[in-house]
């Protein structure tokens, strides 16, 4: 049973999500996302598809399993899924309860996802489980900052934004490490707040 509170929250936002996300953010982040998603290869899981805003920057010709907790979000994404030059199998699913067998995927991608997952370390452990040993995790995320004055600003902002959806102060790189991944590279896109994270599930644990 998915987290119904979270599901209802995202279902409610779905029809106006694109307007809320804003074209500015998508345009600003497009080159970084395109570069990250260019790594897609093999059996790919994309976490939190949302309304499919990222689909236009997916490389063509891939077969991607995409999940999202909100059926309304996936409904909104249908047009972009249909327009994709490849295959996207979109399913309603909570990351904490994925039925995929252990080691089902070669790669997992996320995009502004772990600001919103209820239990981030548990969610990342679930991704760790479905990745094969040596499998890769690629993330485009906004996180909290380690530096003053940005850190208290992000904490203050989170007090407001968490009511609607995302938190602004998650220490996602630390969470990735806590979930058992080995960090390969962190690329700070803006300050230490917007970043791409590449990590790997170690071959032998």
């Amino acid at each position, binding site marked *: 049973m998915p987290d119904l509170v979270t599901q209802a929250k995202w279902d409610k936002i779905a029809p106006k999500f694109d*307007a809320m*996300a*804003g*074209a*500015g*953010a998508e*345009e*600003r*982040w497009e080159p970084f996302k395109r570069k990250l998603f260019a790594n897609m290869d093999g059996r790919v899981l994309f976490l939190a598809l949302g309304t499919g805003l990222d689909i236009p920057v997916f490389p063509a010709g891939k077969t991607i399993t995409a999940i999202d907790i909100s059926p309304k979000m996936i409904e909104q994404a249908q047009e972009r899924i249909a327009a994709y030059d490849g295959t996207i199998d979109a399913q309603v699913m909570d990351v904490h309860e994925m039925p995929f067998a252990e080691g089902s995927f070669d790669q997992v991608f996320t995009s502004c996802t772990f600001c919103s997952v209820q239990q981030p370390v548990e969610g990342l452990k679930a991704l760790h489980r479905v990745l094969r040993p040596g499998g890769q995790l690629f993330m485009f995320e*906004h*996180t*909290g*900052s*380690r*530096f003053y*004055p*940005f850190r208290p*600003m*992000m904490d*203050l*902002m989170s007090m*407001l934004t968490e009511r609607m959806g995302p938190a*602004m102060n998650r*220490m*996602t*790189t*630390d969470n*990735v*490490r806590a979930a058992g991944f080995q*960090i*390969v*590279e*962190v*690329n*700070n*896109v*803006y*300050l*230490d*707040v*917007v*970043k791409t*994270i590449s990590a790997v599930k170690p071959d032998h644990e």
Partner: protein
Amino acid sequence: MDHRLYFALGDFLANLVVGVLVALAVWWIVTPGWNMFVAMFAMMVLGMILGMIAFMPISIKLGAMETMVPLMFTGMVSGMMMGMGEAMMTHSLAEAVGVGAVAGAGNIAFMWIANSLLRGVTRDGKSSADA
């Protein structure tokens, strides 16, 4: 700093405008006779909140975190500077506009420098800039 002209110019103007608007709001609220420290702290918080409010419409065109963080910071500094100044003595409208503009322009310059220091690749996630 984002090297695309649209974003570089947009960031600069947005911070300039928010700096001026916050300074004007503080100029209107605070009068000489306020305790300087109370004025400084209260207006710093007010400026941050006004920066957050301004972020919402501006973010549609200029992006999320790249807009939110500088605008809150500009609001905070503009509120603090104008609050402190106005508690000490009366300023003209033009002076208030000047203080806000300096706060906005100065802060976006600070953000560009901070960003150039923090952005980029860190291997193994072991850098201090790695959150």
